[in-house]
């Protein structure tokens, strides 16, 4: 039943919701919205200025109404959203689906076409991460090359975007391992990396269900399809292997947690509390989270420091260059920027 413009006679219907939109009031509001949709308006305005709160029932109702209006060729706009309501819609992850802009009819004159609501827009899957990364990219020298030039090596996910995607190894723990069939077959327990060359070898795994207990299986980085914000993707169950097949050399896989970070000049900068991994590239360890000594005052704070390529790493200490103290940052966004300038400096020196 495609919408026909001939029968569309109602340009605008406005509904004002003056009570909290929750399970209690949803029936009434639903009836109103039902009537509004039945009039097949070009524009349906739902004014929520006096609505204090929207719960899950309300969100579903709004999304459903939006969908029906949109399918019918009309548009639904939410108006008068308080910061709190915006936040609720954000949490429900429908903030990009529901149009919350200014009233189309009122502002059409001074509004470019590109801002006109085109209905439901698919949220970029990488939305949040991309925003964060884009934000941190501002700190980078625009002229500097991408942190990971896209040559050689397999690159999980979005091969066309050589983006730096740095995570704390700790944050990967607990992330489900999901097959292309959609089954969660394990979850990440620990990150195993080669101390010698600073790359991630793979992950140790834990079971997902109570009955499965700890799984003796492991996952090699080369068998990982992608590490996303919500899951680690593998093609199928066969990717999990037994510990005996895990090709880690005896010296590799050293645990650097608790290691002292030492400069070439012999100053202890701090103790390693986590490893920073670039999962956008070849899963290199790009830096460390440390708890600082007096050398990086105030002592005892958390700081992020880039790894110096080619320097020694043992189960005891990690050696970084003297200049790396100038690239210490306190958060990941800062670290990405710092890492970029650190790398251009390192490559310039050698």
């Amino acid at each position, binding site marked *: 039943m495609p919408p026909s413009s001939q029968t569309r006679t109602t340009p605008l219907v406005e509904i004002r919701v003056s009570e909290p939109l929750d399970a209690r009031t949803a029936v009434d509001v639903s009836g109103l919205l039902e009537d509004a949709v039945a009039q097949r308006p070009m524009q349906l305005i739902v004014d929520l200025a006096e609505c204090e709160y929207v719960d899950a029932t309300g969100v579903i109702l709004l*999304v459903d109404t939006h*969908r029906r209006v949109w*399918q019918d060729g009309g548009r639904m706009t939410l108006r008068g959203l308080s910061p709190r309501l915006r936040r609720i819609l954000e949490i*429900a*992850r*429908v903030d*990009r*689906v529901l149009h919350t802009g200014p009233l189309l009819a009122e502002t059409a004159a001074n509004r470019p076409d590109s801002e006109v609501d*085109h*209905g*439901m*827009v*698919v*949220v*970029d*899957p*990488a939305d949040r*991460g991309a925003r964060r990364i884009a934000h941190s990219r501002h700190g980078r020298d625009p002229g500097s090359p991408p942190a990971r030039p896209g040559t050689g090596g397999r690159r*999980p*996910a*979005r091969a*066309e975007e050589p983006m730096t995607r740095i995570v704390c190894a700790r944050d990967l723990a607990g992330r*489900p391992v*999901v*097959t*292309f*069939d*959609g*089954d*969660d077959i394990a979850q990440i327990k620990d990150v195993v990396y080669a101390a010698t060359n600073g790359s991630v070898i793979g992950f140790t795994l834990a079971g997902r269900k109570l009955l499965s207990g700890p799984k003796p299986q492991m996952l090699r980085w080369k068998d990982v*399809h*992608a*590490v*996303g*914000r*919500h*899951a*680690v*993707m593998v093609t199928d169950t066969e990717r999990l292997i037994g510990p005996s097949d895990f090709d880690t050399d005896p010296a590799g896989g050293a645990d650097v947690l608790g290691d002292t970070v030492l400069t070439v000049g012999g100053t202890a900068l701090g103790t390693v509390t986590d490893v920073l991994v670039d999962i956008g590239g070849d899963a290199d360890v790009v830096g460390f989270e440390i708890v600082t000594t007096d050398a990086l005052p105030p002592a005892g704070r958390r700081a992020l420091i880039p790894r110096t390529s080619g320097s020694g790493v043992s189960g005891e200490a990690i050696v970084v260059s003297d200049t790396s103290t100038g690239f210490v940052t306190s958060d990941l966004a800062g670290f990405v920027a710092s890492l970029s300038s650190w790398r251009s400096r390192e490559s310039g020196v050698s």
Partner: protein
Amino acid sequence: MLFIDMRSRPVVATSSATTLARVGDVVVDPRSRSIVALRVQGSGSDDVVHWPDIAGIGPDAVTVASADAVRDAEGRVADLLSGSYGILGKRLLADNGDELGRVMDIRFEPTTGAVTEVITTGGRVEGHRLMGCGSYAAVVRAEDAPVQT
């Protein structure tokens, strides 16, 4: 059409003109990216209508030839039913490991049952990107450009 518009519709046998059951859930085969069966309610123990057994999908009823069309699952449908087949309400995951939302509905081609779109709380995804549907999530191929309408 959208599955939500088909849900709860009566399943009517054309031979006897009686209502056999009502449409409950949809069984999608992620391999063929199409609807392979409907779960129906109110028919007793047999609760599946295989897609080829559907005679018509109208605005008021889903029609089948006879009461025999409501039966036990067979073959691929039985395999799917033994797993986590339910796609509605499931989280949708791109194969890059990022979550896209929860599946709210699916749009399909009424003649073939082909899934043309997966509608989620985070937006819509073309049906041909569907890869799997399991215990954790429905998985779709991550695509560079978001779909805009």
